[in-house]
């Protein structure tokens, strides 16, 4: 089975992140850059499928030169190789443009299954799997908390607020996963050493037959026009117990829909 995992390098969500002042795009220079956390679960699931069914796992990343660090870190978990779409015209690409590029790259890779995280911690638009499915003419099974593959089909348990739904589709298909699906492995030391020797193929827009003005800020279908800092937290509600503290606490929790 040929599995491709979409991997995105994002600013570390553990430290303060900002947008750039000049064009309101994500500032990738200010915070440390890491693998999008949810993607690690997708990689782990792909590795488990490979262990169970054989085949190969390829990572696909679209991102700046720096994303190569995250690709190598992700490779140290065990995938076989990676494809890095790298082009000066790409920064500032909107979701439709990103999906156009990834779909073109996926067409060259011919996977049986595409896995990705349910969202990235920077953009959080959650639309890429659907857009890719539309462009490639395959099914999108999103929000998986469990995934099984047999003969020519993939089945997931789709996590919902109330419980889960079982969804099944023919392969090839794209599946996005939540962090409830597994516990990603630590890269082994051997994996770290081996990652350096694994093939990472770089593709440009020209390789994919996409013009520069179809992507990036030039080809963006949407634009962030302004941004401002989140206001500092207010002090919150203080309840002084005057014999009715418990009741008032419960009322507060109920009003805020905590209970």
């Amino acid at each position: 089975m040929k599995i491709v995992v979409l991997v995105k390098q994002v600013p570390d969500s553990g430290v303060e992140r900002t947008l750039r002042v000049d064009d309101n795009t994500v500032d990738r220079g200010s915070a440390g850059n890491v693998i999008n956390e949810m993607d690690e679960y997708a990689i782990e699931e792909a590795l488990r499928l490979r262990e169970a069914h054989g085949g190969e796992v390829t990572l696909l990343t679209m991102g700046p030169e720096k994303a190569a660090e995250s690709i190598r870190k992700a490779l140290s978990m065990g995938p076989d190789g990676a494809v890095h779409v790298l082009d000066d015209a790409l920064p500032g690409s909107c979701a439709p443009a990103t999906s156009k590029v990834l779909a073109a790259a996926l067409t060259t890779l011919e996977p049986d299954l595409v896995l990705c995280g349910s969202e990235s911690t920077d953009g959080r638009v959650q639309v890429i799997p659907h857009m890719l499915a539309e462009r490639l003419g395959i099914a999108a099974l999103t929000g998986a908390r469990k995934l099984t593959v047999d003969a020519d089909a993939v089945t997931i348990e789709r996590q919902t607020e109330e419980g889960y739904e079982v969804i099944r589709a023919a392969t090839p298909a794209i599946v996005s996963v939540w962090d409830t699906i597994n516990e990603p492995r630590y890269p082994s030391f051997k994996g770290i050493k081996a990652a350096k020797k694994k093939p990472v193929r770089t593709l440009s827009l020209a390789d994919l037959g996409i013009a520069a003005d179809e992507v990036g800020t030039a080809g963006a279908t949407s634009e962030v026009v302004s941004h401002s800092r989140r206001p500092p937290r207010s002090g919150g509600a203080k309840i002084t117990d005057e014999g009715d503290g418990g009741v008032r606490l419960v009322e507060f929790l109920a009003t805020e829909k905590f209970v």
Partner: protein
Amino acid sequence: MDFTFDEEQREFRAVLRSFVDREIVPVAREWEQEGRYPTQIVAGLKRLGLFGITVPEEYGGLDLGPVPFALVFEELARGWMGIAGILGSHSLSCRMIAQHGTAEQKQRYLPALATGERRTGIGLTEPDAGTDLQGIRTTARRDGDHYIVTGTKMWITNARHADPLPCLVKTDPHATPAHRGMSVLLVDAGTPGFTVTKDIPKLGYKGTESCEVVLDDARVPVENLLGGAEGRGMQQVLSALEWGRVNIAARSVGIAQRAYDEALAYSRQRMAFNRPISDFQAVQLKLASVATTLQAARLMAYWAADAVARGRADAETGMAKIFCSEVALEAAIEAMKVHGGYGYSTEYEVERLYRDAILMSIGEGTNDVLRTVVAKSLVRGQARVG
């Protein structure tokens, strides 16, 4: 002058830090107090491939140099020094087998040792011989295609899990000098006459067992003589000791780092007179002193590791082991003072750091005997300072 780790070393460290913070730090205090064996942590060490750090790649190991080797022990000891103990003597033993074993011995043991499927330790110390290894009393008498081994080994880390346990013995008790009659025998678990007789109760260094082992007419096949020739045991064992000192120096740095981290965090959150105690100079002086000596110890440990990578480094590793172990103890004591009464409580981490730090100046050659090693090296002109 380059004080930075290379990219691979930084990646190793990042994985180790994440592993230690998530799998060891949250459980260390409770498991240590319960006297629980850290089975799950050992399983994690296996998955990371850490049992193979000193095994050559051709046998499935990682063949790490002394610098990344030190990194492993610094990070593990930051979480729980006892865990570093589980890997420490295993790694030294693997290295000794890899360096001195026959082709058949390496093939027989190293692949399974690299994965942690088999584990090992080293049997050197005896009830009446530690520093003076030539004074050991365990003997091995040849009987056909076996050695008949008799003696007692003490303070044997991993004894209940080791298979094989390499033991230093006298194959010729009358040889002069004595080391010419000393050999290492790879004693397989389950060898008739080989018994782990007790776990030695101890102040710290918990999580891993330290045992008394009795060899009572134990029958060890001749093919288990390390390297296949008698009389080389002392040299084989000594070759492991430089790495051993780097190991202890690095563990000491890990303990000191944790003591500093705990002291700094506590001083920021503990309030007195309406201010965090980190505002007070008396506390600041302690934090600054610990940070300074800790950083000096770290530089010295990695300097010594680097020296081992370049060649013979008796003096450098001795100096690093002495200095780092003393810094670890001082850091633990200062961290306890910063914690005030809570530092003395078993509900906080620092009392364990204190109990574990003390061993660092005793194990792997006491600091006093190492001072004589360093001095000899200086006086003979083998090592220079300045």
